[in-house]
């Protein structure tokens, strides 16, 4: 690629929740970098810290009970975690925008779609009502909603699920963000709409030159649209790198298991669909050793004692596993 500009550098991010049941270690020592134009996939099963990491970047962790314990989120050389609320608000929705999982509940039911889009424009771009309205209509047609001008005055309940997610995307794009964080935006949509939304975000990314962090548990989506991937387990990145490297030569048993549990429509053998035995660990309290150890087929004594650090295999591939050289895709 031409200009590889570093836009985001997450260092050692650690977010915990202090609940009555105990301390939830939601995100532990998470580090990764993102360059301009990257589409970064963050995969992992439910409750592995994907969404919490996104909210940490946005500064939207509810506090209490949540607390960002350590780390840096450097965005264009500026540590977002050191900003105060007012400074952070100028970045939120403007430089970094976010779309959420459930479009049915993510739009305010008592405000018109147009109003909700215009709100961010007026706030960040200093536009008047008229200008903001034109811009909102333009955005709605950009995300493929017909008769955009008339639909501005509709309420969310006039929109279908797919259209609502389009409206959410329009809202997120309203200030031309540098980074769009998409937190499982297709999970609650049906498959054909999912494909449309993915294509839409892909096209807009090219058109507007955004970088995208796409959070999902759907590996199919990842393979289709991202160039870099972070695989998360129990709040930690256990493997990361370019999507080709990670998907073709996975070196962490968990990644191998995830990829193995994808159905292969071309397979001729009638083997049962693979599933990883056991359950992910409870994130309350500190985990000794590797959190995947009790489910892992490659487990050795060391795994139970020490958490393996991320090790660089090559320029585009890092993995956290003591036995990585033995691990192979099946």
């Amino acid at each position, binding site marked *: 690629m031409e200009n590889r500009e570093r836009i985001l550098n997450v260092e050692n991010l650690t977010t915990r929740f202090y609940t009555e049941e105990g301390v939830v270690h939601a995100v532990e020592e998470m580090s990764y970098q993102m360059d301009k134009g990257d589409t970064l996939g963050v995969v992992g099963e439910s409750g592995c810290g994907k969404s919490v990491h996104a909210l940490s970047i946005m500064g939207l962790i509810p506090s209490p009970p949540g607390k960002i314990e350590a780390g840096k989120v450097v965005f264009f050389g500026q540590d977002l975690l050191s900003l105060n609320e007012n400074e952070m608000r100028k970045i939120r*929705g403007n430089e970094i925008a976010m779309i959420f999982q459930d479009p049915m509940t993510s739009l305010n039911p*008592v405000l018109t779609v147009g109003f909700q889009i215009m709100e961010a424009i007026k706030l960040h771009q200093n536009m008047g009502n008229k200008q903001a309205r034109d811009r909102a209509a333009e955005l709605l047609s950009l995300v493929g909603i017909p008769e955009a001008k008339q639909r501005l005055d509709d309420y969310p*309940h006039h929109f279908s699920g797919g259209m609502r997610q389009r409206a959410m995307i329009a809202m997120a794009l309203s200030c031309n963000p540098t980074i769009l964080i998409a937190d499982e935006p297709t999970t609650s949509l049906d498959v054909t709409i999912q494909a449309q939304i993915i294509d839409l975000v892909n096209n807009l990314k090219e058109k507007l030159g955004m970088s995208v962090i796409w959070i999902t548990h759907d590996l199919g989506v990842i393979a289709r649209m991202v160039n870099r991937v972070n695989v998360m387990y129990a709040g930690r990145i256990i493997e990361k790198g370019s999507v080709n490297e990670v998907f073709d030569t996975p070196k962490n048993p968990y990644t191998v298991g995830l990829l193995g549990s994808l159905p292969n429509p071309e397979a001729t053998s009638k083997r049962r669909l693979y599933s990883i035995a056991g359950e992910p660990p409870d994130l309350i309290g500190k985990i000794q050793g590797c959190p995947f150890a009790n489910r892992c087929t490659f487990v050795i004594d060391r795994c139970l004692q020490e958490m393996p650090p991320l090790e660089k295999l090559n320029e585009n591939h890092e993995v956290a596993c003591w036995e990585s050289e033995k691990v192979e895709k099946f």
Partner: protein
Amino acid sequence: MTAYILRRLLILPVIMFGVTILIFAMLMLLDPIERATLYVSDVPRTATAVQKIIEKYGLNEPIPKQYIRWLVGNKDEVTGEIEGGILRGELGWSHTAQMPVTEAIMTKLPVTLELALWSIGPIMASGIYVGIQAAVNHNKFIDQFSRVFAVVAWSFPTFVFALLMLMIFYSGLDWLPPESLSQWAKNIVWDPTVFTQYTKINTVDAILNWRWDVFLDAVKHLILPVFGLSYLIFAQVMRVMRSSMLETLREDYIKTARSKGLSERVVRNLHARKNAMLPVVTIGGLLFIGLLTGVVITETIYNLHGLGRLFVNSAAAFDVVTLLGLVLFSSFVMVGGNLLVDVLYGFFDPRVRLS
């Protein structure tokens, strides 16, 4: 929105028809003798006198016939004049008030209305405000304090509180007297040459007549009853607002609003409050209806001659006609009030306008 209001208005007569049937069925639970006795003026009452009344007014005729007569009135065979009929606004003669029931309601209503109007504003405003403050400061001091206050207010009987207030501020300090006006103010208000009673609501009339001394006197007399009524109802509104706001603040669209970079003030006052108001509108409407249809204890203790007093007095005197009129009036207010709540709901929640 207009269509929505129209639709609600069209249902109104149907509901009112149902209400009259229900009320009339209640009346029919009493036997003719019970209904007639009050109207025998000679004491001691004799069986023949009662029987005469029953026959004169057809109290032992078939129920549907009586019902229709109750609705449209009775045509006098000799003079050809129509008498009574609730559709014509004739609710009968009130023995308790010594005037027609309609007139009795119309003279007592302003007193009750004044109390209700002065109470509902402060109740809703403070209930909503404190409820929101408690919700956004969840588990902090104001939240804990208002919760304790709500429980105490809720369990503290009105009549004890009202009497205590009267003891302190009237007998003790002589600041705030009972009744609705001082004697000098009554003299002004009742003198048609210097004062026009446009609405019979003292505070409103005083403003319309430009008599600020009368206005202040009326307000002075309202403080205790309004306060006595408000503290309890306020607690109710506050609790509903608090829990509704807490729930709303956990919604996904609040996260969306924050992710746009909106300030916490905008998120709360615009995105959260409008949604959280819905349950409060409902109970606010019901509370106002409750205030309008009689606050018996407060009116009795502060010696205000409103609908609540009329209700108690006519019940004590077994004045069926007055009671019936009051029940009919209350149901009318109830239906009207609910209509108002529905309209307000449409204003707050666009989804309602569809259905």
